[in-house]
């Protein structure tokens, strides 16, 4: 038993476990047991009961997602599992820890997921810049092949799985699961309309599950130690643990595995060592660049999907970006806007043409020449680029930090207009 199922093998001061060391630490036991004792439907039931939610950002229940994949005799024979390892959310570096720290944990998770939905081919769609992860994953896949944990008739189970590692040419939009599928097919990385969902018509038009790296890494623990153990890991409403990161002016920026339900203060003060000397916390984005700002008053909230949702933001990737009292919030948001604007795929009008306008306004605010009407235009875009208005979640995500910044830091925006540029630079 462990209470750190994701990181128990990880020690970044040494190389990650090879397959021998990983198996020594009971790695792949859960899979072998699964092949012996469990039908795919049993695994599905277990994952459903575990309460595991997707760790990529949306927090959708994993078991429920899997249950939409057609099964039985009438179902298409070809299905795919795709791992979303295209970690590009601003401020987010949690999947990297898993990929570089314990690649076999991901492969074991993939075996469980692929077996459950009966997919015989799985792709890892890896962010192109994660060169170290690429090397480690290639080695791990080769080792797993050698030991008969991948390939045909794995361990006599009758189940086949091939894993194909695909390194992305690099667009933020590839993190959107359907854009990822288009990119994997060699097409433009534009998102697809939903419905139909990838579970019904995904990669190459076949039923497909796209899961985040961290989500899959939760599976070996669930299978090995059971649903009750997994649920008990969470201290609040959500089950399991979560990788949480902190970046910004803190004493010890980094990424840790915490039980869901841990207070945010514990993450910021105990793990990240609190704010650097001379800096005060002004606000933070709790789950990466596309979440709403929370304020110091929210520090005692717990890291729970619902709790943070109720406070008006999202836990999302669980990687916090800290805004201190000596950094310009307008500059910070402007930087994000420039990123999102550049990363728009260009498919739908509000995102393609709205974000660059926002970006232009931020640049003008920065340089001086901003006008009161500019803030009205920014405000107008909040609804215009809001949920349901655009083709995918990129633009609504971009509006989260913008809208909350306009709410919480309005005086900074006004100051940019009145003092003819960024007051922090003067």
């Amino acid at each position: 038993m462990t209470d750190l199922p994701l990181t128990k093998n990880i020690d970044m001061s040494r190389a990650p476990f090879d397959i021998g060391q990983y198996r020594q630490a009971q790695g792949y036991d859960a899979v072998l047991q699964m092949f012996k004792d469990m039908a795919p439907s049993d695994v599905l039931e277990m994952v459903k009961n575990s309460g595991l939610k997707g760790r990529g950002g949306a927090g959708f229940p994993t078991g429920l997602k899997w249950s939409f994949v057609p099964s039985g005799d009438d179902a298409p024979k070809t299905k795919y599992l795709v791992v979303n390892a295209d970690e590009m959310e601003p401020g987010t570096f949690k999947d990297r820890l898993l990929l570089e720290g314990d690649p076999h944990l991901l492969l074991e998770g993939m075996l469980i997921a692929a077996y459950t939905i009966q997919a015989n081919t799985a792709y890892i769609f890896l962010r192109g810049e994660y060169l170290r992860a690429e090397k480690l994953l290639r080695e791990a896949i080769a080792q797993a092949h050698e030991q008969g944990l991948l390939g045909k008739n794995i361990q006599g189970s009758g189940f086949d799985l091939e894993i194909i590692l695909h390194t992305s040419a690099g667009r933020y939009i590839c993190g959107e699961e359907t854009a990822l599928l288009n990119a994997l097919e060699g097409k433009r990385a534009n998102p697809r309309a939903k419905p139909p969902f990838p579970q019904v018509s995904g990669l190459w038009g076949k039923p497909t599950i796209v899961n985040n790296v961290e989500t899959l890494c939760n599976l070996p623990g669930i299978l090995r130690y059971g649903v009750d153990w997994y649920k008990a890991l969470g201290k609040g409403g959500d089950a399991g643990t979560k990788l949480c990161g902190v970046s910004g002016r803190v004493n010890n920026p980094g990424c840790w595995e915490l039980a869901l339900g841990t207070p945010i203060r514990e993450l910021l003060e105990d793990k990240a060592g609190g704010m650097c000397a001379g800096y005060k916390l002004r606000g933070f984005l709790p789950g990466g660049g596309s979440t709403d700002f929370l304020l110091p008053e929210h520090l005692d909230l717990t890291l729970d999907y619902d709790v943070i949702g109720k406070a008006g933001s999202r836990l999302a990737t669980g990687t916090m970006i800290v805004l201190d009292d000596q950094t310009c919030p307008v500059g910070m948001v402007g930087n994000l806007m420039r990123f999102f604007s550049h990363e728009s795929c260009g498919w739908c009008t509000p995102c393609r043409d709205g974000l660059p306008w926002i970006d232009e306004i931020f640049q003008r605010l920065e340089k001086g020449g901003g006008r009161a009407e500019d803030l009205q235009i920014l405000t107008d875009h909040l609804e215009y680029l809001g949920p349901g208005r655009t083709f995918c979640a990129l633009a609504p995500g971009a509006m989260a930090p913008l809208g909350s910044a306009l709410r919480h830091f309005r005086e900074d925006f006004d100051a940019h207009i009145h003092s003819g540029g960024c007051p922090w630079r003067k």
Partner: protein
Amino acid sequence: MAKISVDGVEYEVNPANNLLQECLSQGLDLPYFCWHPCMGSVGACRQCAVKQYRNADDKTGTVVMACMTPASDGSIISINDKQATDFRSHVIESLMISHPHDCPVCEEGGECHLQDMTQMSGHNYRRYDFKKVTHRNQDLGPFINHEMNRCIACYRCVRFYDDYAGGTDLAALGSHHHVYFGRHEEGTLENEFSGNLVEVCPTGVFTDKTFSAHYTRKWDLQTAPSVCAGCGAGCNTTPGERYGTLRRIVNRYHHDLNGYFLCDRGRFGYDANNSTQRVVETLFRHLQGEDGEVRKALTSTEAARQLDAMSSGELIGIGSPRASLESNMALRQRVGTQNFFSGMSDAQLSCATEVIALLQEPGLNCPDIRTLEQSDCVLVVNEDITNTSARMALALRQATRNAATAMAQSARIPLWQDAAVRELAQHSRSPLIILSPQGTRLDDVASDTFLGTVEQQIALVEGITYAIDADCPASTSSFNFDAQAASIAKQLCAATRPCIVSGISAESIELIRATGNLARALREYRHRQSEVKLSVDLCFAMPEANTMGLALLMREGGGSLSSALSILGKGAADAAIVLENDLYRRAATEAIDAALAGNTPMIAIDQLHNGFNAKAHLLLPAASMAEQGGTWVNYEGRAQHSYQVFQPEGKIRASYEWLVPSNPVSGPTVHGDTLLEELAAESANFAPLLELLSSRTGIAALMKSPRQSHRYSGRTAMHANEHVHETKQAQDPHSPLSFSMEGMLLQKDASLMSAAWAPAWNSNQAISKFQEEINGELKQGNKGVHLLARDGAQRPYSKVEYVAEEGIAKYFIDQLFGSEEISAASPAIQARAVPAYACISHELAQSLGVQQHGLLRLSTNRYSVELPVLIRDRIAAQCVGIYCGSDVSRADLTGKLSVAAVAQDSNVLASSRAMFSSLVINDTLPREG
């Protein structure tokens, strides 16, 4: 049927469609860009947002995209809701951010969907005050202008060009607000349907380059409903005229035929009308003193008198497959049926006659173009349909998507979800089996291709027939393709709606007989399989606008071209009238020269100067398609009327007007309608023409439908450089249209609309206002009448006796740009056309010792020609393909052919290499799915 409520009003709608389509079907105005009636929804532009309510108690509602939301029963939506209208005005505001607002100098202005939708969405004042994004434009060849700065990124161009038309050289490039729609590098857009970009693009990114050369606003064009003269498909067009010249052609919606799209020959061939090759004078060739033979222009009256004088004795007439039914009828009346001869080659006429007999057989159904799209298994026999009747090829490309349709239906994905259906189906396609001597443009969606000579194809078709019905007559061929035959037979038998497509371009009656036998075998198989007598779709592409009309007329009597030539050669007639025909294209040079040697006075009536009419004693200028009213019979046997767009200047007349009795003062005394009435009265086969005639009385409240828009400008000033009085408008007593701005647009028949226009809808997309429903029939629209009654007797299998040709096997190549005589005179088409060439395989090239682009000598026992050679990867072995263009007479190369390499010098090689560089050969096979 489902009921939906839109702003409190209930409508009955089709729940299989989306809300946008159904709102438009109901005549409601809802702006859109990325949706296209023929290409479905992708949800990109977000312009068609509406408010949807969960139920009657829901007062908040949600903004949804109408194009991406099914029109399910009980839906409650609002178009006028404030949040929805605000959102739509936001969308248009951001679409206009980088738009140059160059409407005054933009050729789309006045028929711009973006202008219309901007107005509809209520965007007036610009708030964006930063730098616009600008782009560099590309030279896209002779047809299309490119002005990327106007782009609003609706993605329609690539969805049409790549997804719908199978193009490969236009793409969405770049990302975010720098997304760019163009080619990977400058160069001619290769696809045969590139011209549709002009209409598919909602603004002025892609405009008609030929129109630019003599540009006029849409509202200043005089237009009338017309039919395309490019081939026998019968696509409907709207030509536009200003100041006596034809300015352009745009699509005119026909539910059963072309729908929303034309091919590039049809769209850009019109400029032949304004070409320097045009016959504009009446030319009389005679001996004049010391000058010898001269050609002298006559006045129209003199010309008519001269015609009468020359035709007083024993007169023969040669008709034309590119002249109207009226003109052919007028000629036949003038010379008498026994002296009327076919203007087609003998082989072509016998093929067309055989086709008519086949199409009249019960159980063999000739599909219209829309029906072609429904087929779930298509067999193409020999005809390179993309190059002979391109619009039909576009339909066959859609037919291969029926597998995708079926997959989507079982996955419960609505068919209008265009991207989703394509993603689901990937490379799954309905069977399209192509038999051809060389790779074709449709091969990229073919399930099976067979490269073989005509003889080999006949053997295969007979094999398929045998595999379906072992009682069919045994093949006499020495070839045996049983394995392929069995597989093709199996696919045809398994299909719900199989279709066999061929044509007469091979001029092989045996090929048509074999194809007919296959259709019969399949029909009998289907009859055995089902209680309901299921028919088999069978059609043959026709090369010219009235090939079918002339072939039908020839059934009523008359003689072959060769018998006419022999009469002329013997000098047995006192004079001959040759109607719109370059006889050198119809028979061997030797045969024509021999006929001319008979010194029979020759009267030619034609649109363009050509090798034959240069030798006529009297040459009379004939009106083009746009300059006359006329009736044309397409490949199905559908007779359609084209209206006169404008009265030609000078001496040009409709051919029949030269031929009917004429009054020296008032001109022709018989109208074309009378000729049709007489034809209908004389023959039961033409009786339906009366119905066509009666459909033309679209007059309401004594008002005609105007050919000029209500915004037509400068009427009183257009001739001010010549005289100061306002010219009396031309009269048109025989048609429901007037040469005027006055009248009532559209009285009862939407097919009579001169150009699609509705209040607030200035672009061609106004057509939705005149359809019964989106993609439906035109309101009370006349679709032409069928002249081929399907009441023929069931005939037994025909005997196929193919005699293998002596010498090397050959086939003749058609080119979309160049093979058709009239369009080939259009400068833009000429820019895409190539001179005559020959094609052979690598193996044959090696054995002949000829290199790529070198010269090949083709010789018969009486004729020899040297042609540059194209060595192709995908071509039948041991045969030679010949493209004649206007340089070589096909008939000269019939008979035993031999080929030999010609010593090449580097200059020749370089020039033919340059020539081939403009030839697009795209016969790639499908990507493996």
